[in-house]
């Protein structure tokens, strides 16, 4: 209204001299005509100006609202343009976005049909909006012809490796579609959600449970307030920002913004290296508190008690960066499939849960920021996309990550003596032995952040692949145990006859549970392991994994199989019905078997003297597969 009044005043004052000019000394009728025209024109213009309407309120998804001393990234931009820019380009910002044709990563032209959980999901663009046609989730379970309904896709999660989609189940309560879009440039495709998770295959549609409001908002937005009613029926969820923004790590900015309106204060701070006490800078915190800022999401921390849960249910987490995270949360390290039996976390996105058990953290001063950098520096020579991929400091994807503290290994002789591998080989790289790929997530093996040393004993006790056998895929646990004993004096564990004679990777592939098999599916495609182990024996095992009950394992195995010479001999998709997997993979096996005479015998990998697969032994091991149900919730 104020805007319209000002508009009217300016219009009057600006045009009055013209009106006076045209009416001065004229006949009464002409004066009246000019004045009338002026009034009508002014009214018309005012009406046109007042026609601009506020956008319709958003009622079908969580909205962004500044609250509890949070001011949003909009307030940060003017003073911190560089930091704002690197954040803006990061995948943190686009973690959660309102769904439009611009933010939905997958192509929608002509519509998309994805079969998931026993039904078809049909996605299409309608103007700027994205809609899905699906079975009515409210239909009773015993209905045969489930009515189809249309819903608008209102929000997306993820923009880096995978993207997921949300529809409103009424008001701001969101339900997850069992559909994803795979973003990797080499693998872009629509797929069912089950295709990316290690979870028992099912055709059952998950009930609508407002998961975003109950769970996902905790980390996939900036300071969400779930605003869930006591009876759990109303969820008026707000967030300061839908993406993960400045204040997620730096804490609420109201005080900082207010204090720094004073230019004298700002220039005093520019001259002072001590930092600004009105805002948290994780780089200035000690390694524990600094890491806690990341751990609020990148860990397996749960509510400390019911009181904290009920506070969260209304106003969101009470933790603020810089505080002791574990004053309000507890870190659990057992109790579900997220952990190996010794408590090492085995799913991605929970890096602090691994790091906090590592001696580098407990005895040293390692923090997340020892290797990672949440804002790309001006002098960083790498392309922006390379930094954004994992937000590492330059060189921290290599030995520098360790030698920044363990300087003694900068000396080539010392390092060669320590690693017992030739300098420059993958076995001489610190991370390959001390941060092996024993974490699963995002359809790949990911380095554990629990810095550790290779151990055959842990493989036997906890079923976790060790760094040696994950690279030397053709070697046995006995071989590893003997080398660790010879090189480092580590006492070998008790081994079964099979562990002494059959390659560990073969045992994990054939007899292992789905958590072990998926890591083998990835390891068979790891270039370092392929170079070390040879690849001519891998085809039968990759084909076995491509027939795995778990879709994600099939997906990864199929990716690794693309590196095999028999890749051309197969017409395969990981979402094929189970009864088609065997016939579709057999041609590739036949192509591999043809060249048996050219293959050397490898007893540990069950390759006989004639270069053929020792089928009785293969079947024996496969018959002992651990079919325990495993769910690796990322």
């Amino acid at each position, binding site marked *: 209204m104020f805007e319209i009044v000002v508009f009217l005043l300016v219009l009057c004052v600006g045009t009055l001299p013209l009106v006076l000019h045209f009416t001065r000394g004229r006949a009464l009728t002409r004066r009246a005509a000019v004045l009338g025209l002026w009034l009508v024109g002014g009214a018309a213009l005012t009406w046109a100006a007042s026609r601009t309407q506020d956008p319709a309120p958003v009622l079908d998804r969580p909205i962004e609202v500044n609250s509890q001393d949070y001011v949003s990234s909009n307030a940060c931009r003017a003073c911190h343009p560089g930091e704002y*820019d690197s954040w803006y380009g990061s995948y943190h910002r686009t973690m959660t976005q309102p769904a439009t044709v611009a933010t939905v990563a997958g192509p929608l032209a002509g519509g998309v049909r994805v079969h998931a959980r026993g039904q078809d999901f049909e996605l299409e663009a309608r103007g700027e909006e994205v809609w899905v046609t699906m079975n009515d989730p409210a239909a009773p379970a015993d209905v045969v012809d489930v009515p189809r309904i249309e819903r608008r896709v209102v929000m997306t999660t993820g923009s880096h490796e995978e993207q997921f989609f949300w529809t409103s189940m009424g008001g701001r309560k969101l339900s997850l579609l069992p559909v994803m879009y795979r973003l990797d440039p080499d693998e872009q495709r629509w797929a069912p959600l089950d295709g990316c998770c290690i979870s028992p295959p099912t055709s059952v549609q998950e009930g609508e449970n407002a998961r975003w409001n109950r769970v996902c908002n905790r980390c996939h937005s900036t300071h969400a307030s779930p605003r869930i009613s006591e009876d759990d029926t109303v969820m008026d969820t707000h967030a300061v920002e839908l993406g993960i923004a400045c204040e997620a790590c730096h804490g609420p900015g109201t005080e900082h913004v207010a204090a720094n309106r004073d230019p004298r204060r700002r220039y005093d701070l520019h001259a002072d290296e001590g930092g600004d006490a009105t805002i948290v800078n994780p780089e200035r915190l000690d390694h524990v508190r600094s890491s806690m800022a990341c751990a609020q999401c990148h860990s397996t921390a749960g509510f400390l008690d019911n009181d904290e849960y009920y506070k969260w249910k209304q106003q969101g987490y009470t933790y603020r960066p810089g505080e002791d995270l574990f004053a309000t949360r507890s870190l659990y390290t057992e109790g579900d499939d997220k952990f190996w039996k010794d408590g090492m976390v085995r799913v991605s996105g929970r890096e602090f849960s691994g790091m906090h058990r590592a001696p580098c953290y407990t005895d040293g001063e390692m923090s997340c920021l020892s290797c990672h950098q949440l804002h790309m520096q001006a002098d960083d020579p790498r392309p922006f996309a390379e930094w954004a991929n994992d937000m590492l400091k330059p060189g921290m994807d290599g030995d520098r990550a360790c030698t920044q503290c363990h300087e003694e290994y900068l000396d080539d002789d010392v390092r060669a003596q320590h690693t017992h591998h030739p300098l420059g080989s993958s076995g001489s790289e610190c991370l390959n032995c001390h941060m092996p790929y024993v974490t699963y997530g995002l359809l790949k093996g990911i380095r554990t952040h629990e810095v550790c040393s290779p151990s055959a004993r842990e493989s036997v006790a906890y079923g976790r692949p060790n760094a040696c056998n994950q690279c030397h895929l053709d070697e046995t646990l006995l071989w590893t145990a003997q080398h660790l004993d010879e090189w480092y004096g580590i006492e070998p564990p008790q081994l079964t006859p099979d562990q002494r004679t059959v390659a560990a990777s073969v045992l994990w592939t054939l007899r292992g549970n789905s958590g072990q098999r998926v890591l083998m599916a990835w390891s068979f495609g790891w270039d370092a392991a392929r170079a070390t182990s040879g690849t001519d024996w891998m085809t039968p095992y990759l084909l076995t994994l491509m027939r795995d009950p778990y879709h994600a394992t099939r997906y990864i195995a199929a990716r690794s199989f693309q590196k095999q010479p028999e890749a051309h001999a197969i017409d395969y998709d990981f979402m094929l019905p189970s009864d088609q997997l065997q016939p579709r993979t057999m041609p590739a096996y036949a192509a591999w078997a043809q060249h048996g005479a050219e293959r050397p015998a490898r007893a540990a990998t069950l390759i006989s003297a004639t270069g053929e697969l020792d089928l009785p032994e293969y079947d024996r091991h496969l018959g002992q597969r651990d079919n325990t149900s495993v769910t690796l919730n990322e």
Partner: protein
Amino acid sequence: MAKKDEGAASVDAAGAEALARKHLRWGWWSVLVFLALGIGLEAMHGLKVDWYLNVRSETRRLMLTLGHSHGALIGVLHLAFAYSATALPKPPSRLASHCLTASGVLLPAGFLLGGWVVYGGDPGKGVVLVPIGAGLLLVAVLLTALRATRG
């Protein structure tokens, strides 16, 4: 009495001419300098100079652009001042002249120094010259406007 007035008028005329020449000099040289600076800024756009165009240099870019535009426009004001010195029945005061000259140095220099070193969204400390220059410019324009009004 008439002779005295004639004498005063001739002194005023000579002073006005000198004032006009001074501001013509300042004006044209300012326009030249800041026009050249503008070409330099355009060249930095053309050559995609990171120091100038990087998003972290947003404040620098703003400051240098303001320095260029203020310098050039104050140069044009000098020319207008020179015209006023001869066109008005009574030329603008010496104080106005000095204020305009000082502002023509301080205002663009403040912006340029403020853009040379930046602290994120804050310009360098040289930007303190800007309000001083702006105040002097305001005084110069006010005095000249009053002279133009009162004759």
